[in-house]
């Protein structure tokens, strides 16, 4: 089984639009949207949710006011400024915990002399298994201000693998999150191939360098696609040089094409929506990616 993860560092490079086209081109794939923070793939693939699960991670502290003796031990021990007081003196003040600031460390729970702090599991979001016109899709929605998107990403990938194994599907296509932090690390670890999508702008090339560093750090193979390459051919050339210098390959140069937005407005992938030269290039890119994954074995 092969797992392709598409990431970009910088957002807005066209990652999700590419993934939508790959989804349409791949035979027998499972799709996974690991951009759990701001998932968009479902807007194109229009999934029908078949299974829905609550995602919990860690715990949160909640003070039972009835049992609180207002001693302030929780305030003294909290390092995350999560314990709020109404400003009255110790012995009188009412203490509450700001759920957003609470790190879930449980130190206040441990040190509360009258055990007046509950520590329930924290609900952080939901994840779904859905059917789409291009095969099964696993996606998720992280709650606002929720933590540990890395864990949710791992869960989405795991579920996608399970489905692939169960249904004998050979490929998993993952729409990865932006950035280089926790969720990205969780989405590329142990995958077959990373496709980094960039654009010829200072931000695009700067972020690509950080993404390459990350893939090297975690020892996963990486290829690069330069999207909207004609916006600045000079920067495109510099990016390609830098990619080569680091021992990676640019597998596609895609031009800027308004058809990408038009397809999105129509709720379709580019290869479904149009038959022009961009669609043709996307087909070529997908073939190339399949070969790359085959090579890696």
């Amino acid at each position: 089984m092969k797992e392709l993860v598409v990431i970009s560092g910088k957002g807005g490079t066209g990652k999700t639009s590419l993934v939508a086209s790959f989804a349409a081109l791949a035979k027998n794939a499972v799709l996974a949207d690991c951009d759990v923070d701001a998932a968009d793939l479902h807007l194109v693939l229009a999934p029908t949710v078949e299974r829905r699960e609550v995602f919990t991670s860690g715990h949160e502290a909640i003070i039972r006011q009835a049992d609180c003796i207002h001693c302030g031990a929780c305030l003294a021990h909290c390092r995350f400024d999560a314990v709020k007081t109404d400003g009255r003196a110790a012995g009188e003040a009412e203490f509450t915990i700001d759920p957003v600031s609470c790190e879930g460390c449980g130190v206040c729970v441990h040190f509360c002399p009258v055990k007046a702090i509950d520590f329930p599991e924290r609900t952080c979001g939901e994840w779904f298994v859905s059917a789409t016109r291009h095969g099964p899709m696993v996606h998720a929605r992280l709650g606002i201000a929720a933590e540990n998107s890395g864990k949710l990403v791992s869960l989405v990938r795991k579920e996608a693998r399970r489905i692939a194994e169960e249904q004998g599907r050979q490929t998993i296509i993952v729409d990865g999150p932006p950035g280089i932090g926790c969720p990205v690390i969780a989405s590329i670890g142990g995958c077959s191939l990373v496709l980094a999508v960039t654009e010829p702008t200072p931000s695009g090339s700067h972020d690509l360098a950080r993404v390459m560093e990350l893939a090297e750090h975690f020892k996963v193979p990486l290829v690069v696609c330069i999207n909207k390459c004609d916006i600045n051919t000079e920067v495109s050339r510099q990016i390609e040089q830098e990619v080569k210098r680091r021992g990676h390959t640019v597998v596609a140069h895609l031009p800027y094409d308004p058809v990408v937005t038009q397809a999105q407005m129509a709720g379709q992938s580019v290869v479904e929506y149009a038959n022009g030269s961009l669609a043709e290039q996307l087909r070529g890119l997908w073939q190339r990616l399949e070969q790359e994954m085959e090579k890696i074995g």
Partner: protein
Amino acid sequence: MSGETIAYRPIGVIHSEHTTPEDTPAQPVYAQECLGRAEIIPEYADGLRDLEGFSHIYLVYHLHRAGPAKLVTKPFLQDVERGVFATRAPCRPNAIGLSIVELVRREGNVLHLKGVDVLDGTPLLDIKPYTAKFDRIEGTRNGWQDEVDDATARKRGQRGYRPKDAAQNPHARTLVRGGKEVTLTPGMTIAIASGKGGTGKTTVAVNLALTLGGPVRLLDCDVEEPNCHLFLRPKIKNLETVGVPVPVVDALACDACGRCAEICQFGAIAALKNGPLVFAELCHGCGGCLSVCPRHAIREETRPIGAITVGQAGDVEIVTGQLRVGEAKSPPLIRAVKKYARDDRVNIVDCPPGTSCPVIAALRGADFVILVTEPTPFGLHDLKLAVETVRQFGLACGVVINRADIGDSRVKDYCAAESIPVLVEIPHRREIAETYSRGQVLVQVLPEMRALFADLGARIMNWNKSPSRVAP
């Protein structure tokens, strides 16, 4: 005796909001609201044990930016020359400074302080506890200082420093935009956010910063992919390493009771037969293990997670947080970048994309949030998430539509239905994309963009003044 040199090694460094000597209060009493911290070099950290029992401490430090010694000098409080040893002026033969400050709390080797009248970056030589038992003396003679009345002393003692009160702030500026007078409120924080990445957040942050005119601080809190500096190309003035505290176990003192592993919610400590094993990268720095260790066998060291650079590009001071590659948790670094917000100028925060914890860390405390989006299905979907986030925190917001003519009217319809102001629309033009791709700043190249961003600035400032300032 004469001619002998005594060399001291600093034990740490004092950090404060004071970066220019002229704006630094002369005494702690004139700096009561000034927060700061002393970072002690880890090798001396053991010496801090029990210090948190004292509410106030003496800081003994080296006045590293003092001028040459003058034996007769005018003190800050009075225009009369006095012998330097009868003053606390910095121009002393041995440039030693002394302050009594409040110790708010200790985090490992970092002391959080209040009433800090010390310049940022001052080398710290020694710490002693202040105690009323030894140090409070009633009925003292106060020399020439008794000649200065309290009001004058306060005014002169504060020097250029002004406490947070926008109305009296001498840095408040009045701008005239489109015939309307707009007062920029120094200390105001404008956050630039978007649910989706790549919508033009950085473009808006950079161009707005350059358009507001006058000193602006731009805080790049997109620490995973900080990009503002690529366009502003600032001259770097200062560099700070940001770390989080992690436990270090003293194997000799440890009896392998395992309580540290038991309290750790993050699985960062493994309890083994022969003692605990710490995984620093999993630690959230809660300090629980330190507190529960019955043998006091755990102390904390700082593990670096990223760096902050402060640079200057024209009137824009840019503070960039950069997360180390491979580092999973950005909020501590984002919070550190936000500490650079200044009360005497407009602060612009470039947030990371999304709606999860890093975004919240960046958004909190903002006076106004600009949400940047595109008129596409992806843009609208992510805008809705961003609006939900901003509203959960009771923050007011407005929308900037980028590449305004590529899609349809769904974003505008949504904004109208939700009573969210559309502040400006940036057209989709090839020359804008090309300007951006060359690393150039729109307002410096395209005149119509200057007008557009001036309009944006004016709208936000007007909003800030309007009486209907209620969070939606």
